């Protein structure tokens, strides 16, 4: 019998601080990421049939496939929009008409688009949990009192999401080993991948918080410096 070849489910990407790299993901790796997402999303205790607006680019599968699957398995409803300034009216329409309590993937470009089209991000996102995908968007929305602001992004190859308690992005510690090297977060796979990912840089400055999180999830959190 020949040794079976395990083809990836898809090939995504990750940023190592200097360049983009390919990130092949198998079905098993996706499945583990789904379960991690469900755990983190459950900390918010949103009722089932809640709407979740996911704003992303098409090549974000490493983040979006596990997230959408987690949303659907949690009996919630996914709405999609592109991460683009041109999508401002679609995003506004989704928020006004469907009133989803959760919004993932707000970026600087999305905020620019909303502003250009005359929509107030502070008003649109009020009363919702909003996960930003870049520091610029996070900074712009920080301090708006009615928004429960969180982060959702890749830490190198690792998908990461902030829980209800905030204060850092949870990373699945069974899947990934996190290290800090001169203030930069490094990532190593633990469960066997092809190709192996060993101490890859992420270009992200921050620290690793291993204290017990009030949300009850035992995974460590990456606390980004910016």
């Amino acid at each position, binding site marked *: 019998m020949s040794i079976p070849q395990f083809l990836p489910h*898809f090939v995504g990407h990750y940023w190592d601080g200097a360049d983009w790299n390919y990130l092949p993901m198998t079905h098993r790796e996706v499945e583990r990421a789904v379960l991690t997402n469900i755990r983190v999303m459950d900390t918010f205790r949103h009722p089932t049939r809640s*709407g979740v607006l996911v*704003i992303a680019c*098409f090549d974000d599968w490493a983040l979006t496939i596990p997230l*959408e699957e987690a949303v659907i398995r949690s009996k919630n*409803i996914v709405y*999609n929009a592109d991460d683009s300034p041109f999508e401002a009216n679609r995003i506004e329409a989704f928020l006004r*008409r469907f009133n989803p309590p959760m919004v993932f993937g707000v970026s600087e470009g999305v905020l620019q688009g909303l502003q250009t089209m005359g929509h107030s991000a502070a008003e649109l996102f009020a009363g919702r949990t909003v996960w930003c995908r870049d520091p610029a968007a996070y900074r712009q929305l920080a301090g708006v009192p009615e928004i429960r602001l969180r982060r959702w992004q890749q830490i190198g190859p690792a998908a990461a999401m902030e829980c209800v308690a905030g204060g850092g992005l949870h990373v699945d510690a069974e899947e990934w080993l996190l290290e800090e090297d001169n203030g930069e977060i490094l990532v190593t796979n633990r469960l066997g991948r092809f190709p192996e990912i060993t101490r890859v840089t992420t270009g992200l400055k921050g620290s690793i918080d291993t204290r017990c999180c009030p949300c009850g999830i035992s995974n460590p959190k990456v606390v980004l410096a910016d």
Partner: protein
Amino acid sequence: MASTNSRYLNEHVETMPREQIHQLQEHKLGAILDYACERSPLIASVWEKAGIKPGDISSLEDFAARAPCFDKDDIRAFRDTHNDPTGGLARLSDIDLNKIATTSGTTGDPTPFPIRVRASSDEGYARDFWEMGARPGEYAILATFTFRIGIGNHPFINTGAVPILFRHDPHQIPRMADAIRKFKPTLFSLMSTPMLLGFEKWFKESGVDPRELFAPIKGVLYGGEALSPRLKAMTDRWGLELFETTSFGDVMSATECRDHSGFHAFEDMAIAECLDPNGNTPVADGEVGELVVTTLANPEVPFIRFRTDDLVVMNRETCPCGRTHARFHIRGRKGDQIKVQGKLILPLDIRFAIESEPETQGGLFQIIKSASEMDVLRLRVGHNPDALTTSSSELAGRIESIVNNLLDVPVQVELTPDSELLKLGPPHKIPRVTKA
């Protein structure tokens, strides 16, 4: 079961005799109608107004004669009058509902439509990708131009090919080239006019040989708008075979086969009718009519006799590829049709003429509509100021002459930089008809 050498992913269904397609449609139709009337307030309302119940339909002939049609305006009207964000297509409390996507918004406000994760569009694309050459274990560049419908990964699950994801952006081209060299993908999905123009520029600047780079690619899915003769000739020189794809009435996709003789509409998953744009009278094959679709595969998308606004020419003869399902050619949007001195004109009648000139090869233009019937065809045409070799008034006159020779109506051209028209949206989504 077909081997990987077979031309068809599902030979039995794709080459099924038309009588069997009709039987299959009838078998599926009853369940879809029951589901739609039960779960979609809009469909229930439309059928109630027509005084008909799903149980009254016992055949496809009954359906064609008695079932009411609806369109996007009905969805929007239901949404606004009932304060229902789904436009009455679904109930948000329905436990089976897991996703709501939106149309592009080309014809107005984006229309929401419920969709399930494994949709008929995925199954359709799986057949298309197989026809284009995708096989198990091979890689495919997947650069779909929008995330607004979320993720469709089942075409790849169904074919066994592995997608390499990219955003649909010409800035990604160097990295796409890297992926093509590393993974040797056999399929590229999706190419558009902006991507082709981006590749053209990149090949010129980088000195890379297109034929060498694209050597592993067996097929390229092309969409967004009709492929122009210039781009067709260019991709022929690159050694690429492009397969045009379009929407099959927002129910699923329809794509050309290797014979390039129309878009294949898989009728085991949706009923395709071609009706008089101003009524419900069927239009004969070969004549222009409005595409009207009924889903048979996605009960969550209750498009039951949905008027698509797409003007098409239908062909139900067996394709040279052996497929027995309907094919159609797109002529344009019903709402984009204008009348100049009694002559009906669609944007597609003009586009390729504009693209033929070097200064306007981006094909960006709008028809300026001032009345339901006009004496002069007024065009706003985008151009690249850096490419001007003569005065702009000479260019305007040249385009007026070309379009006049083509359509035999008076033409008036107003030039504007490409960058101004691109403020209205991506190139393939610029409104082609605008009010004066």
